[in-house]
């Protein structure tokens, strides 16, 4: 079976995709809120001010959220999904919870989708928590590539820069059952 091909989000996606509170999976004042943030940069290290990042993650126990309501957040329900656009400096941020592991002993990660003007198709990646748990994907990468998938712990959050190209290029993912 043939799958519909992707196309770039273009320069005007702000009209259709970002929404009020999209980056606030939990209110910033939530006692367990952390900031997951970083910059999106191009092959020359310049900011990408017209990118959109989607975040999809487990809750703090590792459970996959099945709740609706992301577009009109009530401040109590954790839907696990959000959207953030980059600002003029290429910076994005989410207020969220630290995800738990998919299964005991697994390394937790945030699943991210990256869209931008100039990207002909979306990109998938994982932003892992720092840690020692073995992981098949990380284990199969050389150390410099592996490092691009691991967040840096900060006092109130986690830093995850996204390099679309070149020096420190982020590892982007494909999955089985996708067309190449």
């Amino acid at each position, binding site marked *: *079976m*043939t*799958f*519909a*091909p*992707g*196309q*770039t*989000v*273009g*320069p*005007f996606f702000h*009209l*259709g*995709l970002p929404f009020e509170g999209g980056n606030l999976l939990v209110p910033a004042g939530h006692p367990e809120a952390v900031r997951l943030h970083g910059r999106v940069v*191009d*092959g020359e290290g310049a900011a990408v001010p017209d990118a959109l990042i989607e975040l*999809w*993650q*487990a809750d703090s126990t590792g459970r*996959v959220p*099945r*709740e*609706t309501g*992301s*577009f*009109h957040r009530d401040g109590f329900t954790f*839907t696990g*999904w959000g959207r953030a656009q980059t600002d003029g400096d290429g910076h994005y941020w989410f207020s969220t919870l630290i995800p738990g*592991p*998919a299964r005991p002993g*697994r390394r937790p*990660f945030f*699943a991210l989708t990256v*869209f931008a*003007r*100039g*990207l*002909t*198709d*979306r990109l*998938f990646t994982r932003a892992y928590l720092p840690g020692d748990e073995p992981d*098949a*994907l990380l284990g*199969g990468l050389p150390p410099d*590539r592996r490092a691009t998938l691991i967040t840096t712990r900060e006092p109130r959050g986690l830093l995850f820069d996204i390099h*679309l*190209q*070149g020096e420190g*290029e982020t*590892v*982007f*993912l*494909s*999955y*089985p*059952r*996708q*067309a*190449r």
Partner: protein
Amino acid sequence: MTTQADIQREIDDLRGSGGPQPRRDYPPYRSSVLRHPTRDLCQADPEGVELWAPCFGPADIDDAESDLTIQRSGEPLGERIVVTGRVLDGDGRPVRHQLVEIWQANASGRYWHQRDQHPAPLDPNFVGAGRCLTDGDGVYTFQTIKPGAYPWRNHVNAWRPAHIHFSLFGTDFTQRLVTQMYFPGDPLFDLDPIYQSITDARARDMLVASYDHSVTKPEFSLGYRWDIVLSGTHRTPLEEP
């Protein structure tokens, strides 16, 4: 200055060079040059949240959001159309009760966006964004107006064929798709480096809607049908999170 003829040569040189998805490295689309990863994608076995898609429901979306012609106080200008179709997964199963979002230019080819400098008129009665949930058969339907073609700065005299941007979710994370729907027979298809970034002709055809007279409403609007096939899922339908 890069001319259409220069771009055309580049497009022709790359014809058929990619697979059924757009080439990430596609220099005729100039903004892609510094923004595409040069390393191969790394294949991952989906786990945890990657086996599931986010959930949306009636709490997220009002039924009226699927009608882009009633968002303002008056009637928008242009050719009223209905765009409808089914969202299917890679095994042909309908994607039920899932989010579909669209955004588009107005009938004159102008976006309701501060960065759109095309000197075509804004329409005070048309914003150009809508969303809906698919029904129990995976069917989505939007009432809108036909967008105009518009110029952009990729090269001298670059024009985009008329299109509607579509954002789609499947039943798992890996099926996420953002794409563009086009209208049949557009004379700009061969000239457009974004459309041609999909170098396989059959794959490109999948983004073109068909005119469907059974969707056309008497004395009211023309109808287009566009079915969307997402990639395959990675779990059995009854699996629980």
